[in-house]
C-alpha cells in the first residue's frame, strides 16, 4: 500500500509521519509537495501535523488553498483514504471535508502530553484493528483542538457514528478532566459520512516505537494496511 505525506510550508510532522509509515509500518511512502497537482498514485493521503503557513490566520486556514488540495478533494470524493493528523485535521475542517471547526483549547494553552482516547467506532478503515472501547495512549501537541460544531451537526455526526475517537481517562471513562481541550462530546477523531476521510488531534505517528513510550498508534497504521485494494 502506498502512502503520500503532504508537505505544506510550515508542516513539521511530515518527516515523523514519513518515518512511521515507511520504517515502522514498512510501506512505500512518498512526500507530496503542496504546489504540485499530482498524488503520485498513492492509496492513502496523509495530511501531517505542524503549523502550515504558521497557522497565522487560523490553524489550517491558508493550507486549504494549496494547489494540491484540488487533487486531494477529488481523491476523497472518489473514496480515496485521507488521514489528517493534528494540523492535518484542522486543514480537513477548513476544506469542509469534515464538519465543524477548531477552537482554542479550553485553558488557552498549547498542550503537549500523552492522552488516552477510546475507540468509538471500529468499523472504519482507520480503526478496524482496534476494538470498540479500547483505550489508546497517544500524545497530543496542539493549541487548537477544541472541536466545535453547531448542535444539528453534532447530532448528525453522532447519529452517523462519525466520531472515531473520544478523549477518556485511563479506564475509558469520559470525564470533564479527561476532555483535555474541551471538545464537544470529547471528540478526538472524526470521519466523514462516507468513512474514507478521518481527522484526529492525537499523533499516532508519535506512538509507533516502544523506545518513545507507546506503540498504540500502530492500531491506526495497521488498520490502514487492511485496506489494500
Amino acid at each position: 500500500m502506498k502512502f503520500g505525506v503532504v508537505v505544506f510550508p510550515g508542516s513539521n510532522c511530515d518527516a515523523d509521519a514519513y518515518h512511521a509509515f515507511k520504517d515502522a509500518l514498512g510501506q512505500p511512502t512518498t512526500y507530496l509537495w503542496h504546489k504540485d497537482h499530482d498524488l503520485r498514485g498513492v492509496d492513502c493521503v496523509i495530511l501531517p501535523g505542524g503549523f502550515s503557513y504558521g497557522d497565522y490566520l487560523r490553524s489550517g486556514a491558508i493550507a486549504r488553498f494549496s494547489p494540491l488540495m484540488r487533487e486531494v478533494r477529488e481523491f476523497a470524493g472518489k473514496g480515496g483514504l485521507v488521514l489528517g493528523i493534528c494540523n492535518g485535521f484542522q486543514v480537513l475542517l477548513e476544506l469542509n471535508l469534515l464538519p465543524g471547526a477548531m477552537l482554542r483549547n479550553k485553558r488557552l494553552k498549547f498542550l503537549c502530553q500523552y492522552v488516552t482516547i477510546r475507540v468509538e467506532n471500529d468499523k472504519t478503515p482507520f480503526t478496524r484493528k482496534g476494538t470498540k472501547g479500547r483505550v489508546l495512549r497517544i500524545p497530543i501537541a496542539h493549541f487548537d483542538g477544541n472541536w466545535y460544531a453547531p448542535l444539528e451537526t453534532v447530532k448528525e455526526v453522532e447519529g452517523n457514528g462519525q466520531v472515531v475517537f473520544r478523549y477518556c481517562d485511563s479506564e475509558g471513562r469520559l470525564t470533564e478532566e479527561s476532555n483535555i481541550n474541551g471538545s464537544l462530546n470529547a471528540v478526538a477523531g472524526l470521519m466523514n459520512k462516507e468513512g474514507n476521510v478521518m481527522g484526529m488531534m492525537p499523533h499516532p505517528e508519535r506512538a509507533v516505537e516502544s523506545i518513545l513510550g507507546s506503540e498504540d498508534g500502530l492500531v491506526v497504521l495497521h488498520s490502514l494496511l487492511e485496506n489494500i485494494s
Partner: protein
Amino acid sequence: MKARILVSFKDSVLDPQGQAVRNALHTLGYEPIRDVRQGKVFDLELGGISRTEAERLLPEVAAKVLANVVIEKYTWQILED
C-alpha cells in the same frame, strides 16, 4: 484605499479568550468591564480598484478567507478612499 474587516466569534460560540481577558481585568480591579469578546481586525490597503469593486471584494474575502463562517461572523467597512 483603506478598508477594515472585523472578524469575531458568533454569539453562540463561547469565547474563552475574551473571558480570560475579562477575568484578568477583574483581578486587576477593572470591575466595570462586564464582558469582553475578542476578535481579529484586518486593516487592508487596496489599490487599482474602484469603490464599487471594493464593496464586492471585501465581503467575498471576508467570507471565503478571513473568517471561518462555521464559528465566526464578520463586518467590513471602507475607511478611506
